């Protein structure tokens, strides 16, 4: 579903260098690494917000490296949810469909399953400003799923939440990913989060991929110190 081929990019002084990775369709892929390791930059590059210096990004077999963000069919949930404060919850969720000029009736029927799956029916008329952190993330997820994207990119979607809410949302994310059969890339630096959601994990440090494998294999055979450190296996 997603294939990154020798991706290099630069933001200020920081460089992400020669990243290769593949995410299968229907796979829940977790990108782990310490703060400032380049995880978010990589996600932004896949979403088209940040240009790459070299390499290619393929989504569903199509080269999207030079495609503008809106044409990549990627649902993006940023760290702070980034809901539009001037729109209600419903208008936020309908926003991508309004952009695509879908009639309101068709748009409403499109978002119904998403709203039901996330259990946010009671929030629709509310302003986004007064929502709790967990509710905001659910609405942001609904908005990202509303236009049936091929790929879901979640940039630390639960890092700002308290522990019980974090576990609840992680469980929800995994269930949604399975229900909608959508390839998902989830950034985190929390082992518990990765344990709940991941099919495979890539550990990234200093802008380079250190190891990609299932959590079990990473735990059993860590290939680098940074992997041990991230998985809390280091002495």
């Amino acid at each position, binding site marked *: 579903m997603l294939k990154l081929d020798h991706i290099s990019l630069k933001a200020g002084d920081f460089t992400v260098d020669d990243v290769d990775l593949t995410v299968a369709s229907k796979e829940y892929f977790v990108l782990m690494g310490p703060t400032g390791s380049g995880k978010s930059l990589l996600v932004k590059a896949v979403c088209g917000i940040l240009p790459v210096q070299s390499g290619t990004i393929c989504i569903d077999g199509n080269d999207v490296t030079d495609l503008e963000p809106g044409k990549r069919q990627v*649902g993006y949930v940023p760290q702070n949810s*980034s809901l539009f404060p001037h729109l209600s919850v419903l208008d936020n969720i309908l926003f991508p469909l309004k952009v695509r000029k879908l009639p309101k009736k068709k748009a409403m029927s499109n978002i119904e399953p998403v709203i039901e799956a996330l259990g946010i029916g009671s929030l629709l008329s509310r302003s986004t400003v007064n929502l709790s952190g967990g509710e905001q993330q659910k609405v942001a997820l609904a908005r990202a799923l509303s236009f049936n994207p091929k790929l879901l990119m979640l940039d630390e979607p639960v890092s700002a939440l308290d522990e019980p809410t974090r576990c609840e949302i992680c469980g929800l994310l995994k269930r949604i990913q399975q229900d909608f059969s959508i390839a998902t890339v989830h950034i985190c630096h929390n082992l518990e989060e990765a344990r709940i959601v991941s099919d495979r994990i890539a550990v990234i440090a200093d802008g380079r991929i250190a190891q990609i494998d299932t959590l079990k294999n990473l735990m059993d055979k860590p290939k680098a110190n940074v992997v041990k450190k991230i998985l809390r296996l280091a002495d």
Partner: protein
Amino acid sequence: MIFRLPESSTEVVKSKRNGLFVVTIACLAIFVVMVCLLILADIFYLMHWGVGLKKLGQILSSPQVLDCLRRSFVTSIIALLLILMTAVPVGYALSRYRFFGHSIINTFIDMPIVLPPVVLGISLLAFFGSPLGHWIKVGLQHYGISLVSSLGIVMCQYIVSVSYCIRAVKASFDNVDRRLEHAALTLGCSQFQTFRWVTIPLARNGLIAGGIMAWARAIGVFGPLMVFVGTGSRVQVMPTNMWLELNVGNIETALVVALITMTIASIALVVAHFLAPGRKWS
């Protein structure tokens, strides 16, 4: 005295009446009293000369004053539209893009703010005396349009006020979270749709406040008008009318027009303050 700590704290504390508090609050009080005295002086002066409500009504309904009021409003509204058409794209470009010469242009934008207004009038005269300006002037005259008309007034109002609006518009675009624009892009918006549906609505209050400030500035333009279009009856606006009335010793009319200008400016300031980004009415 009791006051609240800014935003981060809701704790109410008793102020310590230290030296700094006394000095700064005293300066604030003197300034407020000074401004109030200036406004009250106009009112007392009118009362002193027996300008009651009846006389006030007579002055306000005189054809000359009404003509000036109408011309001031019409020209300043046209100037405001032109100012917004300039300030929104220019403010956005300065806020969002970094290009060669950005800092210099950003500084250059403030030039009309720091220059004495009369200099701008002289510059307009000089421009229309140059070959290019002369060519434009002749072209306009060909269609029966003179610069010594509402067109000249609008030019002066535009040139003096546009920088204020650009500055305010840029500040309100700066305040819009870039992450919201990124989110809109990934949700399918083009750059223009993001601007139309996300950036503009989020910067709306700042844009309105900037427009009001620029309009208030435009309606009060005086120096450039004196230099560029003069004081003929076809080009008189409120500030030039005030000056003419003063010159002929008709101070009551000048003061009434001054009070109208002050009222307009006060309303504009209150609305602009209320709408300005990041400000809360308190």
